[in-house]
């Protein structure tokens, strides 16, 4: 339950300072712009292209949202409080991770307004909307797990942000390699592709394998983060 204490403190850190408001505001502003221009120009009651653009926006937001999570503690010395308290590194990392996930969730929930608008003025197919949101949530949390990992490897927030963005972009672009190669390499890169798996969700296809893929990547980066925080003390 000590993990909850970390979570509460981090949420306080987000919402008692301008960080959460600026980031959520930026996210909503850009996605709102995509939504309005798309709907007004095409007159389609479809959300999936907008959700696709929202992924791109969050690629920029996620590193900034997560860069302070661990780096700041190392910089200011508050890690000395956390690591000498009777609480495990796992609890610390997961508490911090969940705080960023909750901020993201807040932003996502506000964007539920878009499908509600569509529903009011038209009759959109809600299946792809729901599956699209599931995909959007999963990929966002994946970005967050990469961001918190980046934050654990340096005490400089700026560098953590840049590394986080590089990681996210790197994994995002892996799908392009699938098109370059043929044969087995192509299959491997395509199976690692975030892009293709996200596409399934947006088309309304919920594959268990896609969900498991994202969850595995999340678990992998959280695990790495815990190891890094733990390991640094031994050096």
């Amino acid at each position, binding site marked *: 339950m*000590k993990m*909850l*204490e*970390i979570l*509460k*403190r981090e949420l*306080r*850190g987000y919402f*008692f*300072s301008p960080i959460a408001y600026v980031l959520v505001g930026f996210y909503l502003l850009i996605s709102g712009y995509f939504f309005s221009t798309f709907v007004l120009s095409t007159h389609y009651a479809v959300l999936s292209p907008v959700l696709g653009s929202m992924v791109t926006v969050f690629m920029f937001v996620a590193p900034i949202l997560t860069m302070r999570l661990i780096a700041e503690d190392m910089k*200011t*010395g*508050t*890690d*000395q*409080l*956390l*690591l*000498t*308290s*009777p*609480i*495990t590194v796992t609890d610390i990392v997961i508490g911090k991770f969940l705080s960023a996930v909750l901020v993201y969730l807040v932003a996502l929930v506000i964007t539920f307004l878009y499908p509600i608008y569509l529903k009011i003025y038209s009759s959109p197919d809600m299946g792809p909307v729901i599956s699209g949101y599931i995909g959007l949530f999963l990929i966002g949390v994946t970005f967050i797990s990469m961001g918190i990992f980046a934050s654990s490897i340096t005490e400089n927030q700026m560098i953590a942000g840049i590394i986080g963005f590089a990681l996210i972009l790197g994994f995002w672009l892996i799908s392009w390699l699938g098109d370059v190669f043929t044969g087995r390499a192509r299959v491997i890169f395509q199976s690692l592709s975030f892009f293709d798996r996200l596409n399934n969700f947006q088309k309304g296809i919920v594959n268990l394998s896609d969900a498991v893929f994202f969850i595995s990547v999340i678990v992998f980066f959280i695990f790495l983060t815990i190891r890094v925080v733990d390991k640094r*003390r*031994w050096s």
Partner: protein
Amino acid sequence: MMVELKNVTKVYGTRKAVDNISFSVDKGEIVGFLGPNGAGKTTTMKMITGYMPPTSGTIKIAGYDIVEQPIEAKKHIGYLPEVPPLYLDMMVEAYLHFVGGIKGVPAKKRREDVERIMHEVGLIDVRKRLIKNLSRGYKQRVGLAQAIIGDPEVLVLDEPTVGLDPKQIKEIRDIIKKLGEKHTIILSTHILPEVSMVCDRVIIINRGKIVAMDKTENLSAALQNARRYFVKVEGPYEEVVRAIENIEGVTNVEAEIDQDNVVKLTVESSADKDIRKEMFFAFAKKGFPILELKPLGYSLEEVFLELTTEEESYDENAGNIKEGA
């Protein structure tokens, strides 16, 4: 035994920051950890509190090994690092509640605890202030409060008075003394009077090794096998010095002219001989009145310098021998 270190070594890269030290601290003791900068004080404290593990050796807190059973061991420790680990964007009270939370103080008890500790440490007036807006002295108090929450038996305080003004230093020392009634305390410092004022026992560490460990009063007595006096005498400089040097048992005299016709002397004699009477008669015979006479102990400061500079003076001797040869 509240804290027990056995053959603890910490190696950073190729440098030994702490070299095979062993000591233990009993329940209720206040131990001063003394040494020049870079001696390994902070590293040792970081290992005791479980912030970093030792390269080799074992550390036990209240019987729990800090590496093997970290959660149990850490329940018994409160730690104030050199820079207090404060979340600057939090209010004092909220911050202390948070600390209570991660230290596992049950929610119900936490409110009372935080209230009591804020009284104890003197934070009631600033409870709703943001930590970043507090003065250095108040931040240090918040740091102390943070260490006490959860009522740990052992407090580890790294340079608790560094960077404070004299009034704040006194306040913090008083708080520490009060805490010493209920807690076992290990505190590090490079300010010597602090140790003699606050601590029961001193551990002097230099270049990662323990060079001395004893009760505070014994340690300054240890170097007192020579008797030293400060004497102020009225009379012409040369004659005064000659008079004192003629006394049997005097081993060393430092003389200095204080003002017109007044000489300040620091006189050392062997331990077995009290030269005060002879000094009196020697000066009386010459008609030089003694204006002041007081015995000088070695202060802890001198003991400290003696112990931590030993190696260098040894090197000097080695050089002399070479020259002589």
